[in-house]
Structures are given as C-alpha cells and as structure tokens.
C-alpha cells in the first residue's frame, strides 16, 4: 500500500490542487480519495493502469465538494498564510529570484484563470491539459459522450484563452 501511495500521491494531489486551487481543501479531498481507494481496493484491476480510475475518484470528490458548498466557505477563509508551499514555490527553481518570481506569478495567474472557469469547464481543462487524459477518458470520468466531452473541452479552452489573453508566451 505504501508503494501504491508513493506512486500515485503526486498524481492525485496535483490533480485535486489544480481543480480546487486551495491547499486546505486539496489536502482534505486527497485524503478522501485515498480513503475511498482503500475501501474500494478490491475493485482494483492489477492488470490495468489505475491512473484513470484514480482521476475519476479524485474528480468526483472535487465535484462533491463543489456541490456541498464547503469549497466556497473554505475559499472565503483561505489566505496566503495557510499556503505553506507558496514560500517554497517563490524560492524554488532556477536560483534566480527574478525568474522564480515571474514563473510563480505566471503559475498563479493560470491557476486563477482555471479557478475562474465554471466547474463543468474546469474539469475537462485540468483533466486534458494538466493531467493528460484523452477526450475518451474524460468522457468516461465525467459520464458524458465522447463528442460532448470534446465540445465541452473546446468551450473550456476558448473561455480560458479569453481569461489569459494578456498573459503572453512563457519566457
């Protein structure tokens, strides 16, 4: 179980963090995902890559959180002080403080743009472009048809591009 955890923790936490943009909520949802994984461990097919299965559980856990309204409450009370990774992010990377700061600012803006998307559009963007899932896999995760998944992603990308119009290329 420890090996499984080590192998997939970053995938789950990263996906949830990108979906929610809130560290406290992401930790809670990540714990919820691994709790569910443990309860459903008997369903795990050892011959198949569990990543899509984990992505499905993680996505649904995020959607449950959005529906519960707890996410909005957490968002109101969150502040920079409760994001201990922010400090790491601002000093980590190139050993060039200016470049690190620029990269951090760029990441913050992209993350904010993602969070600004309505939830039905946020999911396909994160799953496709951050997580690397195919439209077919996203369709299975979200529970819609393949064509609908493509269309939803296309709308999401248009909306995200609008929000990032003045971002400029990565330096």
């Amino acid at each position: 179980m420890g090996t499984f955890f080590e192998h997939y923790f970053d995938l789950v936490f990263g996906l949830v963090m990108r979906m929610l943009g809130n560290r406290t909520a992401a930790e809670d949802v990540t714990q919820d995902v691994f709790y569910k994984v443990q309860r459903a461990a008997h369903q795990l097919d050892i011959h198949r890559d569990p990543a899509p299965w984990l992505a499905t559980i993680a996505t649904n856990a995020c959607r449950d959180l959005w529906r519960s309204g707890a996410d909005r409450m957490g968002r109101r009370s969150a502040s920079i002080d409760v994001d201990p990774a922010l400090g790491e992010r601002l000093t980590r990377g190139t050993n060039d403080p200016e470049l690190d700061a620029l990269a951090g600012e760029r990441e913050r803006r992209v993350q904010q743009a993602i969070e600004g998307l309505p939830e039905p559009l946020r999911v396909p963007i994160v799953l496709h472009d951050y997580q690397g899932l195919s439209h077919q896999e996203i369709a299975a995760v979200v529970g819609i048809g393949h064509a609908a998944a493509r269309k939803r992603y296309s709308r999401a990308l248009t909306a995200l591009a609008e929000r990032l119009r003045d971002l400029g290329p990565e330096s």
Partner: protein
Amino acid sequence: MSAPGPAPLDVAERSAQDAVRALPVPAATAAFRARLKHEFATGAIERPRSLATAPARVLVGPWAARPRAFAMAAAAAAMIAALVFVANRGPAWQVAAVTGDGIAVIDQRGIPLGHADDLAAALHPGARIELPADASLELMAPGDLAIEITPGTRMILPPTPGRWFRRAIRTELGTGELRITTGPRFHGARLAIATPEVHVEVVGTTLAVIREPQGTCVCVLEGRVRVGAMTGPRPGPMVPVDGGRRRYVFNDGRPPEMATMRDTEHLPLGALRRQFRAHVGP
C-alpha cells in the same frame, strides 16, 4: 464519411493550452504526505471531518455524474409508480345493507350504524370492526366480493384485491361469523381468512366462517376452499372442503371434523350470493 475533426486552435487558445500544460505539479507539504501515507498504509485512514457529512461515493457512473437528469428520471419513475399504484387499487368497500341498529366500534371509535356517511368513511382496509349484538352489516366491493358481517362479530376488514398485482388479501375473524361470496373480478385473486384455529384460503366461492367458543366452522356453499388447522404460528396441512361440506376445527385438541354443511347456513349464504350476483352479474 468520417466525423469532422476538431477545429484548429487560434493563437490565444494554443497559448492557454500551453500555459496549462506547463503548470508544475503542486507539492504537498512533507508533513501531510507523511501522515497520509502512514494512515493509508496502516489502514487507519478516515474521511476528513470537513467531508464526512457527504456520502462517500466510490462507484461512479453516468447517473452519478448527472444528478439533475437522475432526479428528473427518478421523479418521472416515482410519478409513473404512483399512477400505477393508484390505477391498481381495487374498488372501495361500499355499504350494501345495514340490518338493525346500534353502534359499531370501528378502530375503537363508536359509529352509529344509522350514520351512513360516517360508516362509509370509517371502513378502510385494515379497519377493526366490532358489531353490536343486534345488527349486521353487508359490504360489497363491486365485482370482487361481498362480505356479510353478522351481529356481534369482531373482525379486520381486508383490502379489496388490486387490479393487476397485490391480489392476495387477508382478513382476520376474532369472533362471530363472516359470510363471503366472490364475484367475476375476483378470478385470480386469493383471500385468506384467519381465526385462532384455522387458516382458510379462498380463490372463488361462497362460504361462511363461524368463530365459536369451541372452535371455527368453515361452511362451503359452492366451489372449494382449503382449510388448515393452526399449529403454532403456521397452519398445518391444507385440507380441501368442497361445496355442501363443512370443516370444524376445535380449539380443545379434538381432531377436526368434516361433515355436511349446516342447514342454517344454506339460506343466508344463498341470499348473499343472489344479491351480489344481481348486482354484478353471474
């Protein structure tokens, strides 16, 4: 003909796509990672308190992903089920005749037998009926069956058989006598009559069930019923009783008797049958 491919991305869309793809993997704090790993590996992991009120969803499917569609489908299914349930209901009991007067006790409430509206309103399936010693009541479920409740009888009113399902119904006789005849719409239904001594199964016939201090007599005018003596909570072997016969099951340990039906039952059972047939046809 193949489906058209995705539209080419414009510069802004391509740039947005690249920006998301370039996002680094967010790092969790070492403390959180270590704690969660320990709990996961040892089986001590629990749902976070902040999420514990929401149901844990492990299995996912299209319904789980479309709560609104699910809710609409569930509402439609519930409406159809309610319509089917209502349409399935058999006819309501009607008061066909009241002989004598006095106060019937229905569900522990006294109702003067002369108040037809109050009486009709009180007669629902499962109602506990107790008639005074000098009055009888004739109830009819048009097309299905008629029941004559004789003076001094205590019984539980059965539901009428459903049109398509729930066609097995049950009544209990505490004391007194019930005369019962079935109509053409009763075909395929089943009526069980229970007393402390016997279990009677009726599938279409005219009969009387008489609960007396020493036991229960089942008198069959026509058709055939099956009678089982109660041995504990369940009836013993069911014995067929044909038209013109009676079976008496004693409550003092004597073996049941089979004999010719009582003469005194011929007339009232025949009258009940004639009245009901006149109302619903043969």
